[in-house]
């Protein structure tokens, strides 16, 4: 197996992309789940405000997803730019 410089850089970039998106997905996934759980709790306590609570939940989740989007951007950069 011949390993050259360019090949090594590419291999590292691929592994980096996989790990970036893979590990980067853990935090937002758990965090957004927490938001959804608390939104369900709030709707259970106060069902009349279900619409407002769902919208608040979506905004909160969108913000906590941004770190996942950053990982996606980094992964795509590693795959196609580096």
């Amino acid at each position: 197996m011949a390993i050259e410089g360019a090949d090594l850089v590419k291999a590292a970039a691929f592994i980096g992309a996989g790990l970036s998106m893979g590990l980067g997905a853990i935090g937002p996934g758990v965090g957004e789940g927490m938001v959804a759980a608390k939104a369900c709790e709030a709707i259970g306590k106060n069902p009349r405000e279900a619409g407002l609570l769902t919208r608040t939940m979506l905004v909160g989740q969108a913000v906590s997803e941004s770190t996942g989007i950053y990982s996606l951007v980094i992964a795509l950069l590693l795959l196609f730019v580096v």
Partner: protein
Amino acid sequence: MGELGLIHQLIIPVFGYTVTLNLEVILMTWIVFAILIVFGIFATYKKGVVPRPLQVIGEVFVEQFYHLTEDALDREMAKTYGPLIVSLFLFLLLSNWLGLIPYLQEPTKDLNTPLSLGVMGFAIAHYAGIKSKGFKAYIMEYFQPIFFMMPLNLIGELAKIVSISFRLFGNIMGGSIIILVVSYLTYNVVLPPLLNAFFGLFVGTIQAFVFTMLTVVYISVQVK
């Protein structure tokens, strides 16, 4: 096991490029359309105050999804977007159930179907957003909270298309692969019918509902 990844295609050369038509998926989509149209004709045929069975089924679907749309948007908007949402759900539901019938495939198993539906929902949501907020306010939203966040906001929006369509595709494709592999391993004894019931009916229904709800949610986030 050779059935995995076997797709009937029609490749048409056009001015040096090739256009690939996926005949199987087109046929299956038209079968779903045909079932829906026939159902629609029979459900509205001789409708009366005392409804007939098919009319009741139709009314249940229409009413439930109108309520959903009204809850997420408001009454005026529900009139515009309600029919879209109801027909989207019915189309997806039948598509996901189609694989239960021997020799037929789910059209949603091919990435093109969910992706085009996702792009459609995305376009409609952004059209609704521009229409209700005005073009300037719509553009300004991408520069929140600071102007240099624009590329990230843009990718975040585009990623919604990816997530909505790959969710449906992954679930339906994953389900059908599991059914195929387990049928092969158990020589078609006992397990496959149960798996068909779980992945076809149960997961198919849930994913059709999730896709429809997310389309409503994307519209409502853009509008408000």
